[in-house]
């Protein structure tokens, strides 16, 4: 009975993942210590139709921004992507340490390892129509280097 329920749940979730215009996988958020009020969220995004990631929000943070990280002559520079992040059709775009990421700022409380953070991402399709997807991301250790599946 328990097993059946598990399968039903699995089918339901895989179905709902398939139904989403943007598939999100391997998402995680870096843990923080007391007093540290910003961190990064990382994931892989694959859009079924061309889209843009244009905004984010989270109950855990006052501000959520999509950031581009660049190394310029060994200087780390971060800039908010005010025009959004392009998600070309079928191409997996990786938000990972050392690259683009979602910045959670003005955190309301420290994020503990093994807890979960709810993040809502807002996308925009080619016609300019906006849609949102809610994610529930696991918090990984501050020391995580982003062990994405290759």
């Amino acid at each position, binding site marked *: 009975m328990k097993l059946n329920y598990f399968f039903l749940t699995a089918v339901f979730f895989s179905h709902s993942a398939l139904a989403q215009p943007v598939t999100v996988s391997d998402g995680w958020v870096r843990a923080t210590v007391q007093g540290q009020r910003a961190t990064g969220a990382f994931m892989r995004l694959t859009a079924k139709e061309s889209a843009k990631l244009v905004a984010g929000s989270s109950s855990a943070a006052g501000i959520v921004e999509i950031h581009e990280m660049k190394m310029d002559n060994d*200087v780390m520079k971060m800039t908010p992507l005010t025009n959004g992040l392009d998600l070309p059709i079928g191409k997996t775009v990786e938000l990972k340490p050392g690259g683009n990421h979602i910045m959670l700022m003005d955190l309301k409380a420290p994020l503990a390892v093994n807890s979960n953070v709810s993040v809502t991402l807002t996308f925009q399709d080619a016609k300019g129509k906006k849609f949102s997807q809610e994610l529930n991301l696991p918090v990984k250790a501050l020391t995580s280097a982003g062990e994405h599946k290759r």
Partner: protein
Amino acid sequence: MSKSHNLIAGSWCATIVSKTLSLRFAAHIAEKVLRTPITALLLISSIAVSSCSDNATAFKSIDITGAIYGKDFNISDQNGVPRRLKDFEGKVVVLFFGYTHCPDVCPTSLSELVKVKQLLGVQGERMQGLFVTVDPDRDTPDVLRAYMGVFDSSFIGLIPTQAQLKEIADDFKIYFKKVDGKSRTSYTMDHSAGTYIYDARGHLRLYAKYGMDAASLAHDIQILLRQTH
């Protein structure tokens, strides 16, 4: 300074070579094969020289031995203890700049340093990690104490005053800039992400660019530890 180090390394190599039986054996074989002792001697000396220069200069990081900057500092750590470079004599010092509200570069550099220490094994005790915050307003002693503790409790976080930060940035040729955010507290910091490495005598020797892997860093630190044993 560079020359004196090379001289030390050179004399060290010469001693090794003169004592290496395998090289003598190789000379013997070469002489037999080539039948000309002079050619054999040249061949062997070129092998010896190339292996020596490998040992002396085979750093994976950029060799900045003799640099006239980054000589010292006097900044309080996360426990309020004033620290100078000479406090760490006998240890290879690995120093870099960052801030705790950094989403990935700073934790990645610190995680790599934890790996370096593990790779060094017992020698890891002779390596000192120093993290200088470029964001003293948010990186209070409490925050930095908790942050460093997550990585390695032996690593030291240095918290300069704003005036000391300007001074150390000039002295160490590093760049930092506050980039305002949407709220007063959501600013980010652009900053130099490379690492300075000092030998156990407190001389600045190497610069490692951001992203250098733990094995390469451990390799370089081992060379420095050997040179200043």
